[in-house]
């Protein structure tokens, strides 16, 4: 019964119907969670005795960083679906997720840079964490570039899926080597995003913001998938329009090869 409904979902038309029904609700819940989370960030959570008010950036920075990695995991899972089962919806999912992942990564980079400025005295230091995220950002951009270069969606999806999986294998290696490189060079300032213990008054706003960001991802991803499916339908219609010879079907000899 459950399996059957999953397969039903996998049908793009059913999927579109479902997305159209769910999306407004999802967007509403996302907005409410964000209001709650931002309220807690600015009015409930206390300022840090060392970092002062700037600690509030954490409530955006940390969830964005989580989502940047979660998005890549979603892309990896979708890539497997795309390569193994050749499922069109999985193709669409990979393509739709990449710009969202890039946006979350960029957000994490910018907030990280803003957060670090008072401590480092510079907008950017080659801190291991920040640097790894910069590499992740470049990987997202590379995936998007590959997608935009190959015109035919099916071929683009397979190429992107392979690159996504290669990236998934490589990310831990990159992370390890960047850490190694960083400790080798004695980082300019020792800075850790998460302290050893997090006080509950800090934890709650963080959790709510994390949920808000996850909901935001879900909303954006579903909307982007819907757009991509519609974009592909337009493409198919236009291809049909190109091959449909208006007014020449009268003679069989006029059929284009």
């Amino acid at each position, binding site marked *: 019964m459950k399996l059957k409904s999953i397969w039903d979902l996998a049908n793009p038309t059913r999927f579109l119907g479902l997305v159209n029904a769910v999306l407004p609700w999802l967007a509403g819940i996302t907005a409410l969670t964000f209001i709650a989370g931002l309220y807690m960030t600015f009015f409930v959570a206390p300022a840090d005795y060392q970092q002062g008010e700037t600690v509030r950036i954490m409530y955006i920075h940390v969830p964005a960083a989580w989502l940047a990695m979660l998005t890549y995991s979603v892309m990896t899972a979708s890539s497997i679906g795309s390569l193994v089962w050749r499922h069109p919806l999985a193709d669409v999912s990979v393509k739709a997720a990449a710009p969202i992942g890039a946006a979350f990564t960029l957000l994490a980079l910018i907030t990280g840079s803003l957060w670090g400025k008072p401590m480092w005295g510079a907008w950017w230091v080659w801190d291991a964490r920040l640097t790894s995220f910069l590499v992740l950002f470049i990987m997202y951009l590379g995936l998007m570039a590959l997608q935009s270069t190959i015109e035919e969606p099916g071929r683009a999806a397979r190429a992107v899926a392979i690159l996504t999986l290669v990236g998934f294998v490589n990310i831990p290696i990159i992370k390890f080597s960047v850490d190694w490189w960083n400790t080798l060079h004695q980082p300019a300032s020792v800075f850790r995003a998460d302290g050893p213990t997090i006080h509950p008054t800090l934890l709650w706003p963080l959790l709510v913001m994390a949920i808000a960001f996850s909901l935001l991802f879900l909303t954006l991803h579903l909307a982007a998938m819907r757009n991509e499916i519609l974009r592909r339908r337009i493409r198919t219609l236009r291809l049909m329009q190109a091959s449909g010879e208006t007014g*020449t079907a009268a003679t069989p000899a006029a059929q284009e090869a």
Partner: protein
Amino acid sequence: MRLIGVDLLCERGGRRVFSGLGFAVSGGEALVVTGPNGAGKSSLLRVIAGLVRHDAGTITLEGGDDELPVPAQCHYAGHYDALKPSLTVMENLSFWQSFFEVPGLDPLDALDELEIGHLADLPGAYLSAGQRRRLALARLLVARRPVWLLDEPTSALDRRSEAKLTALMNAHVADGGIVMAATHTPLELVNRRELQIGRPQA
């Protein structure tokens, strides 16, 4: 108007393609260039179009615009359709109209003339080989140039489009223009003359 080639010599990659070749076509005539493979039909057309250097001889267009070199008064449609897949059909065509800078048919009318008007807003990538070829031929209509140099213009065309092309060539000839075409398809052209080049199997 008269397009005259005298004593043309063309060498490519050390190989003599043709030598001592001469021809003359008047306005209102269609000259079909025939000959075996490798006789230099394509080379002759490209020499006239100024795309291949000729090592001796002269090409003149009597009664043409003396201000312009001969190639700037010719339309050339070769093996490639000069079509950009990421531009729409309309963008492809109107670019060439603006670039050639001489008046001609409105691009949309030219597309309709070749029965691809319904494709105007589609990207070039979506076109079939025959549609691409017809778009390349529409280029001849949007900028009026007296001489048409057509290299295998019927390739990829179906019979209906072939008839259309014949009609366009005849209209151009009837208008006083010159058509030079290298083709083996027996097109029903008015005022048709033939130029046989190359020795038959030396």
